């Protein structure tokens, strides 16, 4: 389900990255570290490509990461994920959910009757009039143009440029406010004005809307952040020991190289074979582990061991220490004996993966094998 994950990871970036494409970088770094989809070096290349190609940088980054991770479909889904919050966010900002009438608020623009007069429309004023049906109220204000006669666009309105328009079939009727600015039914309207470039509301009415909206937005962001964090640790717990065993076996068999053929992956302790001895060599106890897959050489001419272990609850350190001790003992035994095998033992990689798996890779070309196995385990 890499595609779904790509979509949601980038939707999260789109939701939190306020500002330009540069603001997405820390999120992408975090994403790379958590998912292993790309390294920091990959990211720098992506930034270089995104900055030097046409298109907004953030979109380019999303497309690049998506393609890198999931091919063409990945690129499309990552981009759509990134823009999803933008499309939903502004649309909900402009829609004022007031009394079931949805009204557009914002500067007067093309297609409006008041086009060109530099005035503002404000939506939350819209309300239902039980006698006349829905009434949409536009509060307009334009100090520069509030000359006698109103706006140059010719519509009727009072000197302050405040007017209401009744919504009806091809008819816009202007109704005047009283001089003190009160509405004719003693309701004070919220007037948005542009003066010295700032937008202010005359009374507190619309502040509530703004606050409610920003609060809702903050809440949504917090919930999304929490969901994102809890998803991190939830993944591993969902797998049963049998699934883990199979995952480890497949990951090691597929990526371990030819040495695996001579040392098949051991996943349980059985009577009558080497499995018990193998665990003893590694210093591990069966009860410390939920699941494991181990391929190692018991002959003392090869430094070779690949082990993926899901420790039992709270035993992560015990398991890791055991493997560390094993690694050191291999180094000691090869130090005076086989220089190349000593190097292999010394360079062995031992890490705890993000899903809790303790992974030891001691073999030739350990970096490649390690990366491949990590990828396989994360993909499973």
């Amino acid at each position, binding site marked *: 389900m890499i595609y779904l994950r790509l979509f949601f990871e980038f939707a999260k970036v789109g939701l939190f990255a306020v500002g330009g494409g540069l603001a997405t970088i820390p999120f992408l770094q975090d994403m790379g570290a958590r998912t292993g989809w790309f390294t920091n070096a990959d990211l720098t290349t992506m930034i270089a490509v995104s*900055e030097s190609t046409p298109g907004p940088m953030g979109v380019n980054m999303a497309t690049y990461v998506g393609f890198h991770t999931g091919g063409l479909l990945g*690129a499309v889904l990552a981009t759509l994920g990134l823009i999803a919050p933008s499309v939903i966010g502004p649309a909900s900002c402009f829609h004022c959910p007031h009394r079931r009438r949805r009204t557009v608020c914002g500067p007067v623009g093309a297609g409006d009757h008041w086009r060109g007069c530099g005035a503002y429309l404000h939506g939350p004023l819209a309300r239902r009039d039980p006698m006349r049906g829905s009434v949409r109220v536009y509060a307009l204000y334009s100090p520069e143009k509030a000359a006698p006669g109103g706006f140059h666009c010719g519509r009727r309105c009072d000197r302050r440029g405040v007017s209401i328009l009744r919504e009806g079939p091809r008819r816009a009727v202007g109704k005047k406010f009283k001089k003190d600015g009160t509405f004719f039914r003693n309701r004070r309207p919220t007037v948005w004005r542009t003066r010295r470039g700032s937008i202010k509301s005359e009374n507190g009415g619309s502040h509530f809307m703004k606050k409610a909206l920003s609060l809702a937005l903050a809440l949504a962001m917090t919930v999304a952040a929490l969901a994102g964090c809890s998803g991190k640790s939830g993944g591993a717990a969902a797998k049963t020991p049998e699934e883990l065993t199979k995952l480890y076996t497949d990951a090691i068999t597929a990526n371990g190289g030819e040495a695996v053929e001579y040392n098949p992956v051991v996943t349980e302790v059985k009577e009558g074979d080497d499995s018990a001895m193998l665990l003893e060599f590694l210093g591990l106890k069966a009860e410390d582990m939920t699941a494991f897959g181990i391929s190692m050489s018991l002959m003392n001419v090869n430094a070779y061991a690949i082990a993926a272990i899901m420790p039992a609850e709270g035993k992560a350190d015990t398991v890791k220490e055991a493997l560390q001790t094993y690694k050191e003992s291999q180094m000691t035994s090869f130090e005076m004996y086989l220089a190349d095998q000593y190097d292999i033992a010394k360079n062995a990689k031992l890490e705890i993966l993000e899903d809790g798996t303790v992974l030891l890779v001691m073999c030739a070309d350990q970096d490649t094998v390690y990366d491949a196995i990590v990828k396989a385990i994360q993909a499973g």
Partner: protein
Amino acid sequence: MNIYLDLFLTFAKVGVCTFGGGYAMLPILQREVVEKKGWATDEELTDYFAVGQCTPGIIAVNTATFIGYKYRGIPGGVLATLGVVFPSLVIITAIAAFLSNFADIPVVQHALAGINAAVVALIASSVVKLGKSTLKNGAAITIFLCVLALAVTGNLANFDTGAYGALGTVLDALTSPAVLIVLAGIVGFLLYGRKKGGEGK
């Protein structure tokens, strides 16, 4: 021409002409949307751009959505947005496919190493520029320093739950960018909100 197709194509054109971030987009938008098509006035465009900067999401995408939405409702918003991202999708997919085939060649690798160094410098210069315009008072600088400290700690130390237990989980969450942004938002809301209230009285 169909109005929706027109929206899509116009914004695709804007997308092709935009290099770098959303800031580079403003003059092109101004020419295409205001002068040629008359879908918005100069003032409106500036407003949309300002709102696009402070709402979640990428500026270019936000602005496109705003204009499309204002002009032709929800379908307009969706089509304008798709128009802006369409060229990126095509171009970057082509480049990424191309680059992944050639990335292993030493010559390309060396060139990329050089380019990557330059990118780090460019980002640093953007950071300085942004900082100059943003960090103008004590509150902003305090938030900046706190977030910087947390983010750097998060980068340097990997708080895994195995080594640090429950504290590690908390620290790990605290150093993730999303949480930092939300926290900074809340702190800003409290700090500046109080200040404004004081001035009003």
